Structure formats: C-alpha cells, structure tokens
C-alpha cells in the first residue's frame, strides 16, 4: 500500500495545485517533502520487512492479462530515494526564478515525479511502458513552454527521439508478451508480468533482435552514442529545473531499464551485443569529453560531461560483473546528485550575471567564496576525487570494466582525466582568472540557495565515505539480476 501512496501522492498534489493560487509553492514543496519522508520511512521498513511488504498486484486489464503490479527491491528503492530526494531540491531551485504560470510549472514537476517513480516500481511490462511514456509528457512541456529561444525545434527533436525509441521497446514487449503463457488464475491467454518475461526461453536469434528493439528506448534515454544528439541541445534550452530532472533522474531511467528489463529478459542477446554496446559507450566517453573541452557555454559543457559519464555507467552495466553493476548503482546516485548540483550552480551564476558564456565570466570567486566552495565540491565529485560519491561510483565502474577487458578499462579510465581537464579549466575561467565585468557586483549564495546545495553536498560526502549503506541495499538485487543473466 505504501508503494501506491508513494506513487500517487505527487500526482494528487499536482492536481491540487490547479486549485490553489496563492499557496502553490508551499503545497508543492510540502508534498515533495512528505514524499521524501515516506520514501525514507519505506527505506527503514524495507530493512526489517524485506521487499515482499511493498508488493502490490491488482488486475488492470483482465481481458489482456495486464496487471497493475508494483513493488520495491533494493535497486528500485535506491532510485525512489534519489527521486524523492532530488525533487524537493529541484522545486526549491525553481522557486529562485519567476516562471510564468508557476503553479503549472510545479504541477508538471510533481506529475513528472509520479511518472519517474512509476518507472522504478513497475513490475509489469505495460505498466512500465505506460509510466515510461507518462514521464515524457510533463518534461516535454517543462522544456518546451519555459525553455530558451530554440525550444520549439529542440524539444520536438527530443520528443520524437524518445518516443520513437520507446515505440521500438513497446514492439519488443508485445513480442515477448505474445510468447508468454497465461498467468496462474488468469483468464487471459498471455501475461505481461516481469516474472513471466524472465521465465521465457527464447532462442538466441530472437534475442538478438529483441535486444535492439528494447535497448533502443534505453539508449536514447541515457543517451548512448550515437543516440545522443538530442541531449546537449535539450539540456541547454530547457529551464534549469527541467534540465535537473532530465539529467538527474530521467537519465537513470535508461540505466535502470537496462538492468531490470533488458539484461535478464534477453541474456543471450546481451552477451551477443554487450561488447558492441561497451565499445559505443567508450566512444561516447571520449567523444563527450573531447567536445566538452571545446564548449564555451557552461550548461552545454555540463551536458557533454554528463554524456561522457553516462557512457562509463553503461559500460559498467554491460561488463556484467557484480562490481560493475554495483558501481553503476552507486554512480546513478552520485551522478544524480553531482549533475543537479552543477546545473544549480550554473543557474545561480546565470541568474546573477545573465550569461552562461565562459569567456564573459571570470574572477567571480572574490565576492562569492561560498558559491565557489560549493561549485568546487560538486565539480570534484564529478571528477571523482576520493572522499566523494563520484569516486566510489567511478572506481567500482572502472574495476568492473577492467575485469571485463583490461584495454576497455584503460580507455574508459580516461573519463576521469578528461573530466578533470574540462571541469577544472571551466572552474578556472569562470571563478578564477582575470576579472570580468561581474567580478565586483556579483553577490554570494543566499540562504535559500544553500538550502539546496547543503543537502546535495552532504549526500556527496555520505556516498563517498559510507557507500556501504547504499551498496548493501542494492546487493541482493544486483546478485539476482546477474543470476538471471547467467553470470
């Protein structure tokens, strides 16, 4: 029951927002904090009661054997925690700007949260697809209606890319669904349960093309090179809170989907194509990093940096090693925190100076010591400095990729060196360096902004110092996935 409350609370709040004109901020923030409280409670209860307590299974479309089946395991739980942790912060970030029609903006963020949570808790293929697409609708409007100048073309591209990818996945799911037999006690001839998909025995030839049908959706969402071309434009044009949702949480839908709905469903396809995906991921790492070095727009630079880092996560996942998968889980959390923090800082600078263009900035640090420190912490965690969450995640990921293939590990390791290059260079040119027109006038972070950054920084260090508290939650789930893949 708690799972259903978790899932629909943001949606109810989003609907209520349309009827509260004055108290929109309080209601949105209150609902998201309550949601985080519930998720934290769920995490505590999970430790004592196990995943069975969160299982909820209702018949949804009886004639087709489709169920409303949701549940939590360690992996889902961590992503639910990440989502519920980030959404209040993203809302706080949204409060910093005066958007037109703010209650619709907050309502869409909360609507998005339901979509995202639905993806992470669904245990039925069509329910999963349903939420997968539902999450796209609010983000399209967030990025489109409140975005920058080129928003029309950019969001159209984003929408078409992702929906086309998803339709391939749907086609794959329909094929799998038609291969299943009836579930116990069901009138329908097929079942779309995750467990029914897991127990299918498909030939290697079928799995070979099914892999690409399903992976198309995940590859676009992450995005993996060469399905990434929507990403930098969308990240740049979308308003900061939408960018945070996209990069902080939505990207994880792709990784999560791969872990739950791809690897165990088509294990033979995975082992056939895993090598190619790793090669594409590594190309993405290098490609994103090299382009990031050349960027002059802070937001674009972070966008390419995110592309580079997600490549490493994908490579870790496809290494099919326990350590690589665990690394991906931790890095999903760490990257979510880092990238949201980075975009927040970039937005804070843009709000003050009116520009994101690196050559126009410089010498900001003198008047903004607190901002500089926060920026640096987020940046160093992204660079994977020890003590930070980024280090734990990337180290485990690299260890996993190295176990898979030493050369792949070596090349993938470049991600850390490259990110040090472009991120520190950006920091140097934006915060340090010769004075710019803003050096004297810029103001430091306000208390409200620290309210966003302090929890993020706290989590960065928590992840870096005590990763065990998270790894321990995901371990049974990861072991289970690997057992299903046959490793």
């Amino acid at each position, binding site marked *: 029951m708690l799972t259903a409350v978790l899932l629909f609370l943001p949606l109810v709040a989003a609907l209520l927002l349309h009827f509260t004109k004055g108290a929109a901020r309080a209601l949105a923030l209150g609902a998201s904090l309550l949601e985080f409280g519930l998720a934290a409670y769920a995490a505590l209860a999970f430790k004592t009661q196990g995943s069975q307590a969160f299982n909820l299974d209702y018949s949804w479309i009886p*004639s087709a054997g489709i169920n409303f089946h949701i549940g939590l395991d360690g992996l889902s739980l961590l992503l639910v925690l990440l989502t519920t942790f980030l959404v209040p912060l993203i809302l706080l970030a949204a409060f910093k700007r005066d958007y037109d029609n703010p209650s619709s903006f907050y309502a869409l963020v909360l609507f998005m949260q339901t979509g995202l949570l639905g993806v992470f808790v669904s245990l039925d293929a069509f329910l999963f697809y349903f939420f997968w697409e539902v999450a796209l609708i609010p983000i399209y409007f967030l990025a489109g209606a409140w975005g920058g100048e080129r928003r029309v073309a950019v969001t159209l591209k984003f929408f078409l890319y992702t929906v086309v990818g998803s339709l391939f996945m749907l086609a794959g799911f329909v094929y799998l669904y*038609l291969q299943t037999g009836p579930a116990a006690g069901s009138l329908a001839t097929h079942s779309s349960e995750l467990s029914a998909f897991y127990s299918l025995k498909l030939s290697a030839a079928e799995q070979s093309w099914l892999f690409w049908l399903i992976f198309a959706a995940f590859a676009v969402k992450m995005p993996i090179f060469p399905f990434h071309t929507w990403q930098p434009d969308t990240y740049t044009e979308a308003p900061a809170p939408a960018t945070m949702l996209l990069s902080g949480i939505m990207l994880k839908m792709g990784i999560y989907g791969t872990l739950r709905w791809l690897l165990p469903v088509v294990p033979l396809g995975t082992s056939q194509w895993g090598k190619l995906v790793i090669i594409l991921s590594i190309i993405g790492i290098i490609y994103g990093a090299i382009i990031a070095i050349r960027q002059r727009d802070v937001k674009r630079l972070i966008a390419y940096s995110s592309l580079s880092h997600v490549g490493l996560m994908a490579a870790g996942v496809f290494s099919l090693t326990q350590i690589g998968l665990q690394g991906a889980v931790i890095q999903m959390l760490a990257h979510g925190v880092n990238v949201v923090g980075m975009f927040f800082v970039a937005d804070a600078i843009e709000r003050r100076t009116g520009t994101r263009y690196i050559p126009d900035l410089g010498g900001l640090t003198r008047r903004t010591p607190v901002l500089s420190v926060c920026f640096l912490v987020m940046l160093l965690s992204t660079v994977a400095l020890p003590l930070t969450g980024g280090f734990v995640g990337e180290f485990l990921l690299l260890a996993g990729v190295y176990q898979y293939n030493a050369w792949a590990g070596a090349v993938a390791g470049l991600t850390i060196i490259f990110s040090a290059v472009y991120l520190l260079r950006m920091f140097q040119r934006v915060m340090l360096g010769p004075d710019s027109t803003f050096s004297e006038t810029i103001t430091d972070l306000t208390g409200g902004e620290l309210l966003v950054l302090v929890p993020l920084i706290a989590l960065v260090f928590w992840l870096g110092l005590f990763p065990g508290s998270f790894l321990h939650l995901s371990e049974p789930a990861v072991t289970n996935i690997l057992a299903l893949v046959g490793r």
Partner: protein
Amino acid sequence: MTSIILLSVFGILNLFLGFLRSNKVLLPGAMLLLLAVFGANYADWNVAHAPYFNNMLVVDNYTVAFTGVVLLTTLLLLPFSRSYVVDGESNLAEYYALLLFSLVGAIMMVGYDHLLMLFVGIEILSVSMYVLAGSRKRDSRSNEAALKYFLMGAFATGILLFGIALLYGATGTFALSQLATAVAAPANASLQPMLYIGILMMIIGIGFKISAAPFHFWTPDVYEGTPTFFTAFMSTVVKTAGFAAFLKLLAVALPAAQGFWLPTIQAMCALTLLLGNVGAAAQTSTKRMLAYSSVSHAGYLLIGLVASKGILTGEAASAIFFYSLAYSIATVAAFGVLKLVADHRQRDDYAALNGLGKTNPLLAFTMTVAMLSLAGIPLTGGFFGKFFLLAAAAGQGYIGLIVFAVVMSMVGLYYYLRPLIAMYLRPAETDATPVPVDGIQTATLALLALLTIVLGIAPGFLSGIL
C-alpha cells in the same frame, strides 16, 4: 429498436420545436432527447431480442455497443453547435432534425442483417450529410464541399449498390447468414467471378464512406469546406458506423471469401496508413491535418478488420469498438476546440492556436489530451485503442503490418505535436483575446478530456466486451 423509433419521433418533434426559433430551447431539447435515446439503447445491453422486420435488423450486443458510440459522440458534439447556430441561421431545427435522422441511418448500418437494410442505412446517413455539408449556404466553400461530397458519394453509393446486386446475382440472397452459406458452398461455380466482383465493389463503396485509401481523395476538400461542426460528425459517426457495417459484412456474410478480401483489405490498410499520415504531415491548416488524420485512423481501424479473421466477436471486434470510441471522443474534442477557436479568430491554420495555453487553458488542455490520444501516447484512450488493435493483429502474426503501422504512428507524432507547439510554445498575437466559451461547452470540454484520460487509465471496463 427502441432507439430507432425514438430517434425518428424525436427528429420530427424537433422540427416542430423549430417554430420557437430559439436555440435556448432547441439545444437542451436535442441533448435531452439524445440522452433518452442513449438510455434506451443501454437498456438493450445483454438483452436477447428477436430479429426485426423479417430478419432484416438485429439488436444484439454488437449493435448496442456501436450504437452507443455514435449516440455518445453526437451527444458530446451537440454543445459545439451553439455559436454556429446563433449566427443568424434560420433553419436550426432542421439541422438538429437531420442529425437525429442521420443517426437512424447509422444505427441501421450497425444493426443490419440484410444488405438492403445496409443500403437504406447508408443512404439515410449520407443524404443527411450531403445537406449538412452545404448548410452554410452563403459560403462558397461549404457549397463546394456539399457538391463534391454529393457527387462522389452518389457515385460510391452506385458502386455499392452494383456490388450488392452482383452478390445477389451470385448467391440469390440478401440475408447475411444465407450469404455466408452460399459463399461457403457455391451452388454454381460459373457465378464465382460475379461474386468476387460484387465483393470488390462493396469494398470500394464502403471504403469510400470510411475514407480508406485509395478512395479517400475527397476527404480533405470536403472536410475543409464543411462547417466544422458537421465535419466532426462526419469524421466520427459516419466512420464508426461505416466500420461497424464493414466488419459485420466481412465477418458474418463473407468469412468464406477471406482468401479474396483479406489481401485486398491489407493493401488498403497499408496504403491508407501511408497516405493519411504523410498527407497530414504536409498540411498547414489544422482542419486539413485533422481530415488527413481521420484518413490515417481509418488505416489503423482496417488493421482490426484484417485481424478479425472473419469473426464478429472477440479480440479484434472489441479492439475496433474501443478504438472507435477513443478516436471519436478525441476527434470531437479536437474539432470542438478548433471550431471555437476558428470562429473567434477567423482562421484555422496552426497559427490560429498560438498562445491558446495562455488565453484559454481549458481549451488548450482538452486539445492537448485529444492530440496525445490521437497520437497514441499513454495516459489517453488512444494508446489502448492502438495497443488492443496491434495486439490483436500480432496475435494473428501480421508482424509486417504492425511494424508499418508503428512507423506510421511515428510520423503521426510529428503532426499531432504541432498544435501543441502552437498552443504552448508560441506566444499569442498581441491583441489576442480569450475565446468565448459558454458553460455547457466548458463542461463538455472537461468531460471529453476526462473521458479520454479515463479510457487511458482504466480501459479494463470496456476492453474485451464483444
């Protein structure tokens, strides 16, 4: 049967109400009458009736279900007649009466069990529509649409009648069940060519009515010229009734000739999907886009006919029912919004919708839901409509057709997003004022959006009912 009688009586009643010349009486009157008919129709659900008129008309669940769709569609459409009718039209009572009469034709098309009844039904529906297409008498585009529709329609009806005659010649009967036996075991093999030509001509005749390619060419012009209110009626009620009739013909009378009609329908289906979607993508007028979109939806519904394998009940028939309902509701919503906006802003291209999200949030929201539903995005009825149709086809192994349909629905995404972009992403003209919407219309728009979302969240109660 009660619904046919009631509609006929109410139609005449409406003509007399017309003496009052007051839309304040006529519109609520017509809506109440339709509501009563809807109730009477619902009372027939799961009730076994003996066939009427010497086995010419049957009222079974199939009839009741599709009758329900056309009645509900008309009921939800009526509130949008208001501003149109107020514009100094003197014959409003006649228009309502014609709508009610045309519904009689639609119900006969759904419930027929005899080819003559099918023909009479189609004619009752079509003749009303010829008049209504030209109802804006002083508008030359409306006149052009009426003339085009009439000429093409009369031609198609002729072909249909020719087909019926040939079928009769080959089998000696008009009754569906007897036709089925006669087609399955032909008494005289030399008459087989006549039978097949007859079937082909009937497919062409009905294909014209449901605007399936290659007999769709009249659709964009006629839809564009016809007053928007009646365009909405044409693209929903006529299409739903046409598909119900088509499925019944193929499934009840001609299952034995499947080897002949199945490839024909498949080819039509692929061509309709292609021409409808590509045509819609090329439009700049919202109304013409919706016209082509209605062609493309005929294509999706044809998938249901292919998957039906000549069975009137079961997965495919239920899918066609669900799709018709979801499509009708979304189309009424889209045309309803477009009509209100176009009346106010005096244009019907995409730019007419600019900034609607700011000036009229409810109109924009309803239009958004309608577009997402037509595009088949989850959370809307359109998604499950497509899903049920494609799943039914997949169950029969039509993988090639499904892949093609999915690719075409990707094209669909592009043009269904364009109204959304105009409404939310582009600013309104500086002097844009909110579109006036009255109370009943507001309630209807909200209801249309709600129904679409309910169909998209809880499709279980209507899926698999046939």
